């Protein structure tokens, strides 16, 4: 029960993040709700996987790929290109904390006294920087999954090809 409420809270917070990020990126008003739902869904999956010890990068990859795949279907529902809603949804998992930690350690590196006090500072930078870049890469893979799987096709052509032919026949 506690776990369920934790998942629900996670979903709600991620919904707010994705919704608001949609406003920042200028996603159309009608698609904002879908963006929020998609963001909450993706972050919820990541939360569940993290709870079951999947590892940070693996769970982020799975979550962003599922956002990318569900986004293709959701984009049809609101008549938008998939990127418009998957981009803000994936941003909920942006590795801000790791980027900040590697930057802060980088500033500290310039100070001799701190360097002597904390000799582990270079491994800290390297670890956080590698985490930041791999997480960013997994997000990009999740968003471009539609482009990778359905090469050189517009998403509109994948599913709607029958309807379009019907329309043209009229």
């Amino acid at each position, binding site marked *: 029960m506690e776990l369920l409420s934790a998942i629900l809270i996670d979903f709600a917070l991620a919904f707010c993040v994705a*919704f608001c990020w949609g406003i920042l*990126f200028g996603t159309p008003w009608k698609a904002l709700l879908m963006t929020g739902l998609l963001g909450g869904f993706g972050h919820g999956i990541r939360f569940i996987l993290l709870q079951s010890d999947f590892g940070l990068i693996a769970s982020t990859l799975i979550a962003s790929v599922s956002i990318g795949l569900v986004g293709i279907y959701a984009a049809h529902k609101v008549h938008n290109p998939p990127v418009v809603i998957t*981009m*803000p949804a994936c941003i909920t998992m942006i590795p801000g904390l790791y980027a*900040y930690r590697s930057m802060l350690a980088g500033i*500290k590196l310039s100070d001799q006294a701190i360097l002597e006090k904390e000799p582990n500072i270079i491994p800290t930078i390297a670890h956080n920087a590698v985490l930041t870049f791999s997480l*960013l890469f997994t997000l990009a893979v999740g968003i471009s999954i539609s*482009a990778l799987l359905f090469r050189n096709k*517009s998403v509109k052509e994948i599913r709607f090809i029958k309807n379009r032919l019907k329309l043209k026949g009229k």
Partner: protein
Amino acid sequence: MMENKTKSTKQIKANEVAEFILDAGVFLMASGAHSGRVWRNCKRMAEHWGYRMNFNPTFTGIMVSVWDDKDSENAVTRYKTAPQNSVHLETLTQISHLSWKIADGETEYDDARLELEAIKKKAHYPFWLVALAVGISCGCLCTLAGGSPVDAALAFCGASVGSVARYFILGKQFNQFLSIIIASAITTLIAGTDTIFGLGRAPEMTLATSVLYLIPGVPLINSVIDLLEGYFSASIARSLFAASIVSCIAVGMILSIMLLGINNF
């Protein structure tokens, strides 16, 4: 359908098609579309007007060649510089719809031109709404990362104030990198009070999440997508742009952290 195609081929010169494609293409590029999307949209329109096209997208501009297979005189190669990058995903939706309308023969060239101009003039969400949204999302991110409500409230204040400051600096036509440095410095100053006075439970999260609204997520992700699809020059330009924005954020944070005293962090 076929009749329509031959009719429009006679009417529209390659030069006009190239101009339309460039207009739509650079605007899409600046609004946050990856090169593959620009290519698909432009090709769709050119093919309906009976032309073949090829283009070289870079982040700063597009070079396009448009030619007619049957008439070798009717061909043109042109270049256009892209406007300043400002992410607006609604543009992607509308130009995509416009290109489908053109491909289905529902719009003629002149009407499409007018519609493109209208799309270009479309306003972004008002700045106060963006500031509010940015604040809420940074507050939520802070809570997600494990911050207490006090941390989240400070992240909200920092992000909102920084976002408003950035809007006014950009309105005065300053360089956008400068605007990012100042916005991140202001945000860090506000969020840093959490660490200095020990207000919340996890002050580190406040600092880390409150500047996230400046992160160039769209260019960063687009650069990887372009890399995967083989548009290398666009990918390198985008990642360079994103990297310089990220370093500007770092510079702003460093300024504030130095001001507040590095030993406190």
